[in-house]
């Protein structure tokens, strides 16, 4: 694997900054929990940058949030500390990005049409599984709530929003990929290897 070049450092930093700037933005849902763009930004970084650079970009984002920037939103409303009740949902993002980026770059990136979209959705669904498993595990451990109650509090209200976010990311990734390919053909090709 190629080591980091200056360009890839700037790339990861810029996407981390994008995550920070867009995550607090929310779209109100009638009668439900607002959709925040938080995990949308995470998956966007994963699908555009691939497993390695996506992982690093999201790791930088989580690191910034870990020191208290209010760049996390949604889920159970935890903010700041990764060791809190909802910290597991946040700490799992770099790994969700790693998994989603890997699956998409390996199976879906060079496809066309419906297959491409299907692969994007599958990659994001599997990434979401990582997020919920880690997040719920930590939530249950720290609060000692039952599994059922934890699912109801932390997962069920957020599923509709999460699905809509995946649709949003699936819509905009192909457009942005064209720009990415012209600028970062070499780096992303090596990331794919």
């Amino acid at each position: 694997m190629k080591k980091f070049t200056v360009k890839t450092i700037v790339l990861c930093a810029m996407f981390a900054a994008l995550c920070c700037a867009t995550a607090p933005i929310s779209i109100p849902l009638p009668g439900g929990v607002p959709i925040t763009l938080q995990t949308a930004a995470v998956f966007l970084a994963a699908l555009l940058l691939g497993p390695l650079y996506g992982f690093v970009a999201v790791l930088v984002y989580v690191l910034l949030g870990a020191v208290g920037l209010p760049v996390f939103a949604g889920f159970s409303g935890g903010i700041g500390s990764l060791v809190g009740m909802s910290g597991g949902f946040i700490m799992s993002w770099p790994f969700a990005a790693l998994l989603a980026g890997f699956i998409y770059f390996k199976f879906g990136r060079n496809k066309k049409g419906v297959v491409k979209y299907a692969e994007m959705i599958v990659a994001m669904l599997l990434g979401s599984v990582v997020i919920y498993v880690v997040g719920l595990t930590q939530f249950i451990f720290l609060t000692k709530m039952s599994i059922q109650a934890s699912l109801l509090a932390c997962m069920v209200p957020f599923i509709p929003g999460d699905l809509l976010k995946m649709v949003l990311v699936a819509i905009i990734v192909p457009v942005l990929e064209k720009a990415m390919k012209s600028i970062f053909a070499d780096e992303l090709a090596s990331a794919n290897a």
Partner: protein
Amino acid sequence: MTNLFNYIDRPSRIHNLTGATKLICLLLWSFAAMGTYDTRFLALLSIGSIVLFYIGHIHLKDVSFMLGFTMVFLVLNTILVYLFSPHHGTEIYGTTTYLFGMSGHFGLTAEQLFYHLNYWLKYTATIPIILLFICTTNPSEFAASLNRIGVSYSISYSVSLALRYIPDIQRQYDEISKASQARGVEMSKKASIIKRLQSASAILIPLVLTSIDRIEGITNAMELRGFGKNKKRTWYMGKKFKAADYVSMIVCAGLLVISIMLNIHNGGRFYNPFK
């Protein structure tokens, strides 16, 4: 758009600590506060938090936006826990003491209120310390601190760059959003969900594209100035450790030890006054 964070250049004894010290202390303090539900210890940390906040010369108006933001999610979480697990406190503390003549599944109990008190104390113990770190640490010095504690300078410099460009991207978002709305894009509650998703993509695509566009220029500027040619680098903003740094880290490590010892003494993470 209000800036989500900002370094406040108003020198104090907290400002003089190195970023590495403040980062380590922040982590130790957070682990100590989040690792136990002992009310007495959390109250002590809360008072300490507020005192340090004052020592750092931070004013409430400096951080009111972030506090408001945090409060919304604290309230939301409190409501959700109560709705889905209203007898959580009862399960933890082992007794049931109904209040206000209520009973049944949603009956309010003293144990549940006590549990929520502890939960809120965790946040009052940690949020002022977090805000203190943000407001008293120069972003450039923070990157130097990360490098000092072993993070490679590529990664720590990514952090510095990300910090540098967050305000730019926020400004870009604001401009793009206003430009879109001037052309008829509707983002408010009046529009349907589908239209709002379309509006979101109409803003996100140009936002990402303008950010990508800048990467080439930034990269070339950095390389022309010799960035990345060596395995190590010096830091202009770096600070040396002083006595105050060591004392601060020792005190915070002591707090973590106390937190762990209290868990042992209480027979678990919960201090139970209902026994």
